């Protein structure tokens, strides 16, 4: 499962840069501080956690779900 705390996001897009599967793309929605929050495409996400690990604001949480891993 992929979650983002929109208000913690500063729109730096490092998560997009580390995503090997292109499951993240630049967002169109702005958060309360005016930053563009990235969009997540859940069907191609493999929960590799790179975005969670790199996020400078610890806004992203990736929880690995077994069945999802098996599918991918």
């Amino acid at each position, binding site marked *: 499962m992929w979650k983002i705390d929109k208000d*913690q996001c500063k729109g730096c*897009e490092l998560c997009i840069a580390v995503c090997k599967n292109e499951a993240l793309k630049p967002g169109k929605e702005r958060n309360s501080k005016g930053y563009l929050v990235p969009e997540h495409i859940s069907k191609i996400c493999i929960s590799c956690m790179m975005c969670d690990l790199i996020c*400078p604001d610890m*806004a992203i949480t990736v929880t690995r779900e077994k069945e999802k891993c098996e599918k991918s």
Partner: protein
Amino acid sequence: MNPLAEKYLRKEALPTIFCPGCGHGSVLNATIRMIDKIGIEDFLFVSGIGCSSWLPVFIKADVIHSLHGRSIAVATGLKLARPEKKIVVFNGDGDCLAIGGNHLIHAARRNLDITVVTLNNYIYGMTGGQMSPGTPTGGKTKTSPYGNNEKPFDAVTLAIGAGATFVARETAASPVKITKTLTKAVAHNGFSFVEVMSQCPTQAGRNIFGKAAPSDLFNILKENAVSKKGAELTSSQFRTGVLHHDEKKTAFRTVNELLKTEA
């Protein structure tokens, strides 16, 4: 918010003061994961002044956010008063290598059992982008408008030369490696020094590298990090990984401890 952030960060201090895409945030993220493995009650943190030194202020722990350049000196006093604690110092390239260089080499010489994490972002960020001992030769900054006419410090070689017994370098682009290396560094009995090369989109990015996108700077860090032993380096490249580890050298002991051992 990430559950680890929930658990270990001071919510009242968030968001961090770091600019969007600052590598220091990723280092904070990686540090939290190291702390989570070991247990936060073992740690005390000390930092100096500069962007880097805000890092531990966001951690829900006991922290001394000290003076510019003096973090290692403060940590020395703290360690001697609280030897049972793991002391981790965060400072920057200017803080640790310019104004605080003397304390770095002497703490390394003593082999004092503390960990120093120097976040090298090539520039003085907080004051608006002036050249630092981390700025590459030729790098244009606000105080080197014609290009830096000096050579940067190789902090790792400096620390090894001064007597540090665990020396490593990582980049903010490799958070998993930072967590692993920091875990080893705090476990090491003696002076451990970890230089983390970090991207500064606001100052170093625009001025030195001509790029402001965090992802571009992130890729530059990745291209310049060489972890393969013995590989040839270009002028912009640097070695990463654990570069020196000497477990035989005894860590600093107070005279009190020496007298007790003799008796």
